[in-house]
């Protein structure tokens, strides 16, 4: 039975991918990536097309004529630039804090000699992946709310309750907590690639722990730092749920403005223009980071050499 299935599969493969094409096997593995990029490019093409048509309020359809009205609207209305700036600033703050917190976590997870500690850190790292972003945001509402855990402790101590949610810092806090596992996961391979012998060699040459950390560990972990920074930065820049849930409606990011354009006011053209702008700015900033700090995890081979 199994043999028959294998033979049939073999015949099918020899028809679909004859032996003459075996020299191109490498390209076959590229197909999923090419398909992904192809779909993305098509979607972006449509979006670009939509962004060049103004909404006709008498029919709620896009006008036939091409125009830059939507882009002009973005420039004319300070709210969009303000929201864009807020998103960029949050992306920067969250990246710095997250990577700062993720590095010691990854380092400890790799270097600890205790199997129990490593297991605990791994479980703590992966557990949040089973809980969606929205659920985690609501978790913060329970902890930071007016009658939440923290305020209950404060009022229990006779102190006044604080406004800890529905503001920008609450959004930043929620994002840092959400991004931390991503950053740790991207940093861990880079830290694991640093041989402990290199650190011992540094110390045997007279460097103290801090000097070793600064001049040996950090430079060798640069690919991981760049990779995690890029991922955290772009995920934060495009985030929707945290500002929506923890921002109280007044700390919107650019993704929330795109949602509003598409769904609240049914202006697909304006939403598409905002999305194109976000894609361009995000891509340009990532390219800039690569230019300044190298290509992160893509430079692993160089680092190993």
């Amino acid at each position, binding site marked *: 039975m199994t043999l028959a299935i294998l033979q049939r599969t073999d015949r099918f493969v020899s028809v679909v991918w004859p032996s003459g094409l075996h020299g191109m096997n490498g390209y076959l593995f590229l197909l999923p990536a090419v398909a992904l990029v192809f779909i993305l490019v098509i979607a972006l093409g449509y979006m670009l097309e939509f962004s060049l048509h103004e*909404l006709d*309020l*008498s*029919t*709620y*359809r896009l006008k036939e004529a091409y125009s830059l009205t939507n882009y002009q609207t973005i420039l004319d*209305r*300070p*709210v969009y630039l*303000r*929201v864009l700036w807020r998103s960029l600033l949050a992306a920067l703050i969250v990246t710095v804090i997250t990577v700062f917190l993720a590095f010691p976590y990854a380092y400890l997870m790799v270097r600890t000699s205790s199997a129990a500690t490593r297991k605990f850190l791994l479980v703590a790292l992966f557990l949040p992946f089973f809980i969606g972003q929205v659920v985690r945001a609501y978790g913060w509402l329970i902890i930071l*709310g*007016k*009658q939440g855990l923290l305020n209950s402790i404060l009022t229990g101590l006779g102190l006044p309750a604080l*406004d800890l949610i*529905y503001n920008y810092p609450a959004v930043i806090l929620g994002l840092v907590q959400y991004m931390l596992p991503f950053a740790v996961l991207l940093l861990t391979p880079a830290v694991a690639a640093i041989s402990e012998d290199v650190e011992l060699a540094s110390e045997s040459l007279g460097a103290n722990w801090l000097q070793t950390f600064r001049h040996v560990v950090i430079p060798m972990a640069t690919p991981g730092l760049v990779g995690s920074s890029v991922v955290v930065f772009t995920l934060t820049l495009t985030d929707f749920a945290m500002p929506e849930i923890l921002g*109280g*409606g*007044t700390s*919107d990011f650019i993704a929330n*403005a795109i949602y*509003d354009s*598409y*769904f*609240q*006011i*049914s*202006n*697909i053209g304006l939403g598409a223009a905002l999305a194109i702008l976000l894609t361009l700015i995000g891509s340009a900033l990532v390219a800039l980071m690569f230019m300044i700090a190298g290509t992160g995890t893509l430079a692993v081979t160089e680092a190993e050499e």
Partner: protein
Amino acid sequence: MSDKNTPFGFGRRRFLQGSALAAGALALPQFALAHGHTKKPSELIVRAWGGAWGESLKAGVADPFTAATGIPVRLDFTEDNEIKPKIWAAVDQGRVPPIHVNWDTTTNATISALRGATVDLGDLKGLDGLLSIAKPTGIDGWPLVNTYSYVYVCAYRPEAFPDGPPKSWRVMLDPKFKGRVALYDDGIGFNPIAVIAGGGTAADIPNNMEPAYAFYRDLKKNEPLLGEDADFTTWFQNGEIDIACTISVNARAAKQKGINVEWTVPQEGCKVDTDGLWIPKGLPENEEYWSKRFIEFAVTREAQEKWCSLLGLPPVFPGLEPPADLAGDPSYPTAPADFEKLVSVPSPILVENQPIWFAKFSEIMQG
């Protein structure tokens, strides 16, 4: 208990079952018998709002409709603004739309009608006997049927207002309510009132909205929270807000859940609006037919009485009494004098200006 045979030759239990079936068949609403020949769909999908809204539709319309026709009704709680583009795309691409009936705000339904996405409902029975607000304005025919009116009331926590209900919306500007005021996140329901609270008059709408924007700028200093229906209930429940502009249904549902919330119509008035039902184009003929029957049923006396009583809203079927807890309530307008306290903006004006008002509201609140 024994189940002895009767003189007719079958058991008493069987006799009782048969009698119940016969009685049920006789009691079946007339429309169900009259439309029994068109093939019934396996289910009807009706987009609805959740919470007290969905529960009322289920108990007042969906369940009785199923009992009468045998067609199960599934409520789809997709956000109203999110189902809109899905329906539009389906209609434009000639696909079968994702729902049969859309329970929608009149403004959004009118926008869908302007896009040509709605089926004309002019042939529905019983429309002539409804109040005039059932008919949409500023658009030809019956692309939707308005089913009730509702008021965006001033809901408040009584502990925060020991001297009685707020008399004016301007109390929202009081620094002692900083961070404890809530509005809808798109300004819906409050824009016309903000004009009056900002020193303008109803006649200023829509050409001079500056008083509203001035009011919003002042309100922004008080750090209001912006959210949706469900948020208001949560915020009141958690003691996170003292005052909000929300639909009376939400305030009443919160109160019925034991949350200490009251509502009032302040001196500037409240916005009154309508919701309706409509059917997207592109459904198979039999499904469109039964979707129409669903809407037809929703505006019958029986359905309106139960549905609107559960919602606590004035129905479009004339002559129905308000629920006992809402008799004389300003949020349940019945007489012309009640409507004088409320501000109504015609749908065509809302459709044309809502995006402009939203843009300005957003600009101020995101500052």
